């Protein structure tokens, strides 16, 4: 039976709706993996069978896969773009085929916005602003920070940088020592941080990472340096823009300063639910944002621990 939020007057019976999902691939990071797991579980729970494709982070392949889904005449399509700009022509083809389109998690470029029916997911810019505020508060508006950014070319990385810098640039006493791409990879975060420590040593007061995966890599590097006496314990404030479970633990203990809550389960469920509604013919808001509150030791207990 259809869930109660499903429109009573649907264009198509609930059971017959085919959802196509062209995703960028779980290879992106732990968040994406948790998202897909949740998505599949939710689909099973609802009794719908989505057609999933994995672009393995290749924009050209993703465009091909979107066309594969058009060929299968899906009723509604979700796309998590590898590249917000490169998805535009394929998105237009989706629109031409009369298929409603949801862009999930990572925005499509402005130029393709008319092809998109609705966006669901985080507001990356706002999230980064939130992280910026946390960092500014952690440093009392004064100090040196290093930035560990996301995958080069991935739109989210840019937004997470711009939003953060918008806030930080209001504090003339906060200086950015350097910024390097950590590829959304923990190992890379660790390696880069080790080099930052050698280069800047005790100058570093704060580390902003694109998400907890990268941030935890940086923390691991700092721990080793603390053990060796190169750094003082507790001096560096670690902040990132998407909280993973293990960082939730560390915020509780105080070793990690703060992060931003963003739930892959909510993200996935929102996308699927919105897709089904669209297929039924319901009108949606153009932007359906997730709640992304900032998290520090002060409020960590009010937020449930992410399980990824």
């Amino acid at each position, binding site marked *: 039976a259809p869930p109660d939020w499903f429109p009573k007057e649907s264009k198509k019976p609930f059971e017959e709706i085919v959802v196509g999902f062209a*995703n960028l*691939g*779980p290879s992106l990071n732990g968040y994406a993996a948790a998202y897909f797991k949740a998505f599949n579980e939710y689909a099973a729970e609802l009794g719908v*069978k989505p*057609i*999933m*494709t*994995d672009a393995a*982070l*290749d*924009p*050209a392949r993703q*465009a*091909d*896969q979107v*066309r*594969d889904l*058009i*060929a*299968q*005449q899906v009723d509604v399509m979700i796309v998590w773009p590898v*590249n*917000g*700009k*490169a*998805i*535009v*022509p*394929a998105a237009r083809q989706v629109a031409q085929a009369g298929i409603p389109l949801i862009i999930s998690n990572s925005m499509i*470029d402005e*130029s393709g916005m008319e092809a998109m029916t609705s966006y669901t997911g985080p507001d990356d810019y706002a999230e980064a602003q939130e992280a910026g505020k946390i960092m500014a508060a952690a440093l009392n508006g004064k100090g040196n920070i290093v930035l560990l*950014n996301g995958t*080069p*070319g991935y*739109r989210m*990385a*840019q937004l997470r940088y711009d939003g953060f810098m918008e806030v930080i640039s209001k504090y003339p006493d906060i200086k950015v020592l350097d910024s390097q*791409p950590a590829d959304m990879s923990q190992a890379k975060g660790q390696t880069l941080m080790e080099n930052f420590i050698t280069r800047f040593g005790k100058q570093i007061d704060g580390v902003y990472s694109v998400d907890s995966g990268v941030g935890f890599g940086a923390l691991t590097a700092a721990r080793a340096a603390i053990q060796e006496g190169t750094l003082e314990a507790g001096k560096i404030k670690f902040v990132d823009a998407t909280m993973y479970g293990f960082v939730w633990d560390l915020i509780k203990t105080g070793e990690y300063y703060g992060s931003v809550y963003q739930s892959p389960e909510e993200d996935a469920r929102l996308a699927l639910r919105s897709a089904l509604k669209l297929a039924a013919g319901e009108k949606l808001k153009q932007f359906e944002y997730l709640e992304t509150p900032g998290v520090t030791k002060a409020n960590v207990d009010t937020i449930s621990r992410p399980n990824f």
Partner: protein
Amino acid sequence: MSLATDRLQPSATSFDGLKTFIRSNSVWLLALALAVFFSLQSAFFLTPFNISNVLTQCVFVGLLAIGMTPVVISGNIDLSVGAVVGLTACIVVALQPYGLGVAVLAALAAGVLVGLVNGLIVEKMGISSFIVTLAMMSGIRGLTFLAIGDISLSSTDDRLNAFAMLAIGPISIVVVLFAGLAAVVGFVLRFTPHGRNTFAIGGNRSAAVDAGIAVSRHVIANFALCGLMAAICGIAMAANLGAAAPSFGRDYELLAITAVVLGGTRLQGGKGGVTGTLGAVLALAILRNGLNLLRVSPFYIPVIVGVVLIIALVLDRQVNGQAMRHGE
């Protein structure tokens, strides 16, 4: 053919004929088998839209693989093509403000230039092409990122994307262009001195040198051609996606080489051709498309593709394999 009678036997049995056919077209048979299988499994497979889809999906890897074929036949390899795709895609988009013509020409020139540099280093410095192009792959990628940054570029000139979206009936213009280029390269390999010399160089380089063939020139020309095809791929990708990023074409070199080898071109050189490469590109595209239509979980696709790759290699060894030396 025997020790004493070298004339081709006209009275070859029909079984021999079949065998020869299978031998030179094994990968086409694989493509055919896959197509039959998937059309039985999915009603969508043989729809015009999907057929045109599969053909379109051949184009990018196909362009690279066609360009790579002469390079491999001459006994070399080019690992830098994926990076060239990223570079030229960025060039053709970034230079649009100077006019589309300028942008396209600059991208083509950049591809040829990289090819020439590859060829020159290989020939004049005597370094193995695997190493040279491995280095170039890393270097070009680095340069592109350094020049463009961690961003993607939107195509501002709509003509580029509009061209890519043109179609003749259900067949995309890009496919037609690709088919034309493949025919030209195939023709050059088979019917021109450059093509035959390419085979000679890969088959026995010192023989080619001794015969007075200007070996270096042919090798460099093949690298340049390969770079040109990679540039065309980069332009086509930027056109098709209406955007460009330095990361475009990542791992495509491996996909292209896989297609070349599956197509029956010998990695040591001297043997092969465009027809086989085309068949392999098609077979791989059908496989991916079909698995998709069958709703196979994306998690399983790398495993299936890997297994099919190995099975195809094993089968090729069975039909085409060198007489194996016992004990070796």
